[in-house]
């Protein structure tokens, strides 16, 4: 009886072995997207681990008729949003003075975005820096369209928004990225 009800509950096999197989197939692409979004390998690995932990926990909700990698991209973009919020809360910057006890003050830094913090560490490629210079929603849409080669409809599904919003984000994101690259390459060539 339990087996019969189990079958009624599932659209797909949800065994750990099946999850392991799908994780093995998808983790390189998921890591690549995480690196494009986060900007450095340490944060990219953290994003991947958190994404797969969530995926494993909610594996029973995965519909096998859909792409597992696309499902992972969706989870990853949500994890990235949470990640940026967390990073944004803890970031401080040093204030160049001391208080009456000779200690340095630390204030919340409102001028540095969480992703800029990630950028400070290891990124070298101009293009990757350019991607990090644009807003995270624009970056996600541009990376999914141009690096991953997804259609607007798929991107809308992953980002849980409308196709019109995706179109706008890609258009604006590309323009901002191009402006950054033009400025940077001019600076390098000068």
């Amino acid at each position, binding site marked *: 009886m339990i087996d019969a*009800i189990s079958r009624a509950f599932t659209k797909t096999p949800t065994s750990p072995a099946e999850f392991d197989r799908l994780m*093995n197939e998808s983790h390189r692409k998921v890591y690549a997207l995480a*690196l494009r979004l986060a900007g450095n*390998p340490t944060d990219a*690995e953290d994003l991947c681990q958190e994404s797969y932990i969530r995926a494993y926990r909610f594996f*029973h909700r995965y519909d096998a008729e859909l792409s597992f990698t696309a499902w992972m991209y969706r989870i990853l973009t949500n994890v990235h949003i949470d990640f940026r919020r967390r990073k944004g809360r803890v970031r401080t910057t040093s204030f160049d003075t001391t208080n009456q006890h000779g200690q340095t003050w630390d204030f919340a830094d409102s001028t540095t975005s969480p992703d800029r913090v990630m950028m400070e560490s290891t990124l070298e490629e101009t*293009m990757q820096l350019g991607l990090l210079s644009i807003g995270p929603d624009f970056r996600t849409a541009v990376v999914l369209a141009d690096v991953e*080669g997804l259609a607007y409809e798929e991107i809308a599904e992953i980002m849980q928004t409308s196709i019109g919003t995706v179109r706008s984000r*890609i258009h604006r994101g590309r323009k901002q990225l191009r402006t950054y690259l033009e400025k940077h390459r001019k600076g390098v060539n000068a």
Partner: protein
Amino acid sequence: MNCSRATSLISAYLDSELSGRDMLSLQRHLNDCGSCQAELESIRTLRQELSSLREPDVPLGFESRLREAVYSAQPAKTATVRARTFLLTAACAAVVTLAVQQSMPRSPSQPVYLQNDIDTDQARLAASDPLSGAGPSLVSSPSYGP
């Protein structure tokens, strides 16, 4: 179509995400507008640069760390576990329902006041029916005077 509208459509045009009507309008505009043609080429180049980025290698030991993180976290709920949870919940609900029913006092089939009304009506009907044999003694007729 003006240049502002045209440049807003160029990205979607390059991605083959424009409707036929917009695509034709944009193509007509591009044939006559050098600056929008330059914009198109600029975005096209950017797309090519992005699509040619190589897939990065995963760091050394990435897969084993990933597995350890995933499988040491909270285990997934399998279908069998969820089916057992469903059965257990259903069984508990049935037991509680039965217990509540058993603990309630048995109510009569009809309330007392309703039964009295029915008896009175039947008696009145019998009194008014000459074939029923019931005498006027069952129902007292109203008196209109001393």
